[in-house]
């Protein structure tokens, strides 16, 4: 029987070399291996968690947290449940990310524009800024800002005073409207600064570090975007008698945005993720609260699910907004 089939088999490749079957075999094997791996890991997880009495449960979220948080934008105290603590941490993260995004965009755009300046010195400074900052780890920069710069600020009357702003070890004080109408500048009361707006030095250090670090990357994105605009545009504007800044603002940047926006998306997401390094400078962000919670409850898996979910959600949100912006920028193209 085998001898009869042999000639026919020569024309048709054996099944393991069949182009129609092969892909599915490969996929089935890979899928099976992945499934086995996941089953193995999950099996271990469930067995180990059962043994440790820590099987998945979310009831602890409603128990009182019994730890405090230094600065929150949504009210929180130690009697409130864990979920409130995590929410307060998330709000703190959002605050850092939001202000960081704005600051880094402004700084990055300025630095990116400066690298096209006629002034050689300005170009050089922009270049040095980008090259120095991008090659030093962010964590190192953050601890430097906090422990070396911000903790060296003096307190009380000796604090660094710029009109409207006071930098002291006890915090950064900004002028603002008090009770909605009265313009108030920072002032000393009993050797303690009072001002409408106050942020802690921890937050200040985090924000400074994030803005300066991300700013360098954004500067590169902006530079790349501007470089992608044909030189003829500059020359045409110049021959029409339009100034350098006006050319950049009204002619080059709008065109460059099409290249810049996708690049910004990546930088924004990495800024959001980098904000978790706040834990190194004592700012209580989501990650910091999650760590404390994990330590008090021992609920490692649940806390990490929350943490990963929150950061993935944040990234998704940024991506969605940036995609919207991207579409807006692209539509205006003619």
């Amino acid at each position, binding site marked *: 029987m085998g001898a009869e089939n042999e000639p026919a088999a020569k024309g048709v490749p054996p099944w393991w070399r069949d182009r129609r079957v092969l892909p599915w075999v490969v996929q089935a094997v890979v899928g099976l291996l992945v499934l086995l791996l996941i089953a193995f890991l999950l099996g*271990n997880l469930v*067995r*180990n968690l059962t*043994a*440790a*009495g*820590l099987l998945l449960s979310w009831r602890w979220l409603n128990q009182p947290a*019994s*730890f*405090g*948080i*230094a*600065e929150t934008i949504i009210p929180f*105290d*130690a*009697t409130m449940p864990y979920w409130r603590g995590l929410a307060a941490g998330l709000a703190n993260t959002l605050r850092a990310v939001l202000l960081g995004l704005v600051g880094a965009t402004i700084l990055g755009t300025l630095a990116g524009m400066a690298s096209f300046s006629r002034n050689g010195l300005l170009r050089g400074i922009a270049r040095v800024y980008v090259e120095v900052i991008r090659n030093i780890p962010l964590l190192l920069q953050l601890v430097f800002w906090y*422990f070396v710069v911000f*903790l*060296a600020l003096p*307190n009380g009357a000796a604090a660094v005073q710029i009109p409207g702003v006071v930098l002291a*070890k*006890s915090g950064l004080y900004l002028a603002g409207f008090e009770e909605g109408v009265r313009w108030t500048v920072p002032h000393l009361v009993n050797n303690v600064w009072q001002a409408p707006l106050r942020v802690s*030095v*921890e937050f200040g250090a985090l924000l400074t570090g994030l803005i300066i670090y991300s700013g360098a990357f954004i500067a590169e994105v902006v530079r790349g975007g501007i470089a992608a605009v044909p030189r003829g545009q500059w020359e045409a504007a110049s021959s029409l008698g339009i100034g350098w800044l006006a050319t950049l603002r009204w002619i080059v940047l709008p065109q460059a945005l099409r290249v810049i926006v996708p690049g910004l998306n990546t930088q924004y997401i990495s800024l959001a993720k980098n904000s978790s390094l706040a*834990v*190194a400078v*004592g700012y*209580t962000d989501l990650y*910091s609260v999650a*760590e*404390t919670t*994990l*330590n*008090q409850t*021992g609920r*490692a898996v649940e806390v990490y699910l929350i943490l990963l979910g929150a950061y993935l959600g944040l990234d998704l949100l940024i991506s969605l907004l940036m995609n919207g912006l991207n579409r807006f920028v692209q539509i205006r193209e003619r």
Partner: protein
Amino acid sequence: MIRHPFTGLQQCGVVRKLGMALRRSLLWPLTALLAAQLAGCASDSGSGVQSQKMATINGRGKLVCGVDGKLPGFSFVGPDGAYTGLDVDVCKAMAAALFGDPGKVEYRDLNSSERFAALASGEVDLLSRNTTMTLSRDAPGGNGLSFGPTTFYDGQGVMTPVTSGIRTLKDLAGKPICVESGTTTELNLADRMRELDVAYTPLKFQTGDQTYAAYLGGRCIAVTSDRSQLAAKRTSFPSPDQHVLLPDVMSKEPLTPATVNGDPAWADAVRWTVYGLMQAEELGITKANVAEKLAEAKANPNQADLRRFLGVEGDFGRQLGLPSDFVVKSVAAVGNYGEIFDRNVGPGSKLKLDRGVNRQWTDGGLIYSPPFR
């Protein structure tokens, strides 16, 4: 009884066989990579004990001990790279009890927020890191640790610069206070301040280094921790006399070595080795005279208590899965509890702490070993 899941020896065996097969094959350079990563893997040459953990430790040939590493008096790395301190001596005593050699310890520096995970995942065998015993840390539904005898009875205190003008906890109203996150002190601080109805700003740091760096940097007006730790840290400050401990004691902090829940045999071995150190002090057995006492016990069949304690008669060691002379070995290595205390935190150290409640029960203290019988 729950068997602990993190010490399965069979899997280790499989990996070793894999390693050997690799070594035989031409891929031997890869084994260097593999071998380095499986350093924690044990052989199963146990000593006939039911404890998986002890089989792992015996197979590895050394004890992995989780310590703080940056706390003078309790665990501190000197300039020569050697660890010293009260917590370290507990590790050394344990290694001496197991192997007869106090040097067979590998120390792991752990910060307060990673210590329990390190113990639970089997990364360290013994946690001797000024850890407070509490219900939730002990309970299987909480952190699920198994605590040994308390080696240092402490209380939470507050340290502040002399010049700050702060004399009581109430003076701290509205002030920033530095605290290490993931500690009982963080929770006690919140509780006590709430009781006193004092609002404050907790500044939390991941590690002790950062906490004290921020305090010394003047970021907070006070730092809170166990009183012994504050005293210990103060000795390393540039001008120790510029800092005072407030008289308030916020809490009870029984600092206790811990093992993982689910291996009672190993927990017992730790428990009775530490009790052995305390009992030795009670019986007047010291590092210097332990050999003498042993000879005396051997010569004198009437001293049944001493003979049992030092392993001359009876089988206490075997019951625990330890050598019969484990007490002799551990006391010979680090001395009795009193000697350990004096050398590391008491008069023989920079800390100069008073024995206080850490005296023997015979002197009215809390150090009390149950009978060895």
